[in-house]
């Protein structure tokens, strides 16, 4: 509690108005000690002027509080609120193991070491399986990229997957949606549409029009750059996880051995793979590559990609065809 020179002056004598004014702010803030508060109360019972002044001060504080709280610019955008919460939760969950290790007592650390050993063994086994699969793909001449593919029409897939592009998509998902550590700030899709790629302008409206697949929640939409590649980025949440729908202009990177751009029908074929532990589902239109990246299971990611594919491909193809 505050002890001021003025408080001493009030001891044993009647408080005067100018003394009250000196400590009125501390009185309003309930920062005075009991003795001084009592002296102020006594003064206020006999001084209507100071009572009025005190009331005015309190009223002004209340008006200031209301004005700031009610100001529209001081309210958070709902989409920012949602994505911030999702990012923080994902960050907490991705670091939860480390937190538990740091906070656990000795008795539980042995248990954790056993769990960590089991996890390490599982990872090694998984790496061996993936390595064998990649080697098999390589030997069959399809390159080292695809680990699995869409089972809808096996054997008919156009050679869509561009590994470096898919890695960039995963990188954008990680750095933008999850950690928000991009070197350049995202911009609105409309602005990106005017400056870079016309398909960005109405992209979010096209993707989000009508009902989203059940359980899918929209969080944010913008245009961002990861490793010099610009993506239209729609961030969704599904099964409690962040999901990125990423669309990038791929005109300059079309495979040279691809005889002609895929048709709309072909473009709905989806190839699925994993990079850095993230499942990636990929589609390609004549000029754009479309990715769905998340840390869902590969099956769930693929199912979601299939659900979102028709509206994404239809819209992008429509823009490409002018």
């Amino acid at each position, binding site marked *: 509690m*505050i002890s001021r020179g003025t408080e001493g002056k009030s001891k044993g004598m009647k408080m*005067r*108005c*100018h003394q009250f*004014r000196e400590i009125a*702010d*501390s009185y309003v*803030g309930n*920062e005075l000690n009991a003795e001084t508060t009592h002296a102020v109360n006594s*003064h206020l019972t*006999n*001084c*209507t*002027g*100071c009572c*009025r*002044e005190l009331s*005015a*001060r309190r*009223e*002004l*504080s*209340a*008006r*200031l*509080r*209301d*004005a*700031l*709280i*009610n*100001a529209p*610019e*001081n*309210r*958070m*955008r709902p989409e*920012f*609120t949602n994505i*911030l*919460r999702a*990012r*923080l*939760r994902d*960050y*907490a*969950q991705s*670091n*939860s193991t480390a*937190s*538990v290790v*740091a*906070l*656990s*007592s000795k*008795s*539980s650390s042995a248990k954790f070491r056993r769990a960590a050993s089991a996890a390490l063994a599982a990872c090694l086994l998984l790496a061996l399986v993936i390595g064998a699969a990649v080697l098999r793909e390589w030997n069959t001449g399809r390159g080292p990229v695809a680990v699995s593919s869409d089972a809808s029409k096996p054997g008919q897939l156009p050679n869509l997957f561009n590994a470096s592009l898919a890695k960039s998509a995963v990188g954008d998902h990680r750095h933008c949606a999850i950690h*928000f550590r991009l070197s350049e*700030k995202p911009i609105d899709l409309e602005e990106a549409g005017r400056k870079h790629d016309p398909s960005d302008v109405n992209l979010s409206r096209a993707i989000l029009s009508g009902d989203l697949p059940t359980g899918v929640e929209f969080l944010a939409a913008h245009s961002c750059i990861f490793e010099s590649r610009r993506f239209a980025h729609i961030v969704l949440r599904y099964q409690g996880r962040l999901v990125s729908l990423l669309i990038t202009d791929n005109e300059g990177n079309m495979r040279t051995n691809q005889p002609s751009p895929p048709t709309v029908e072909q473009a709905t074929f989806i190839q699925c793979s994993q990079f850095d532990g993230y499942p990636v589902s990929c589609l390609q239109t004549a000029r754009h590559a479309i990715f769905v990246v998340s840390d869902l299971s590969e099956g769930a990611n693929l199912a979601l990609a299939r659900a979102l594919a028709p509206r994404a491909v239809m819209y992008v193809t429509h823009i490409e065809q002018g």
Partner: protein
Amino acid sequence: MFREAPVTESQLEGTTHWERFESEAMPHVASLFRIARWLTRNQTEAEDLLQETLLEALRSFHRFTQGTNCRAWLVSIMYHHQSKNRRAAIHLHLVSDAEERIAETIAFEEPAPQNLTDEEVLSALRRIPRTFQEVVVLADVEGLTYKEIAAATQIPMGTVMSRISRGRKLLRSELAAYARAHGFGEQHREG
């Protein structure tokens, strides 16, 4: 406020790091955004500052002492980030003699709060020096105590007290013309 709090196993039991953070820190997000918006005067910068603050708070949440004022703890992290972001942070600059003198020479004028619009109150607040604005907002709007404001802003408590008092005085002065125009603000006789 920043004392290392020993976290017992029983505290961990049944709740995750995120759940504890969510229940303690997340209810203050709207309040933190207001402060960030006031500090930066820019929507995007305010969102960035809020995110930096909450990420840092999440990383250091084991340092938060349960039972203390979480909002004050978060505000202190926000101020730390803001000063780091700005390098020569505005809130850390010394109040100029001129500002101090102006604050000292303002005569008390009683405003007429019941006749003020929100925009008039905010405009008046924007016209006073930022150094005073910030402490007034933390005290009157966010309800922090002098001690909590001193810890958050790294300003001595005596300075916080005087700045709040002078800030409010300047605010009343800015509103005085309006008050007089509506027939309020007469000084009462000394008792």
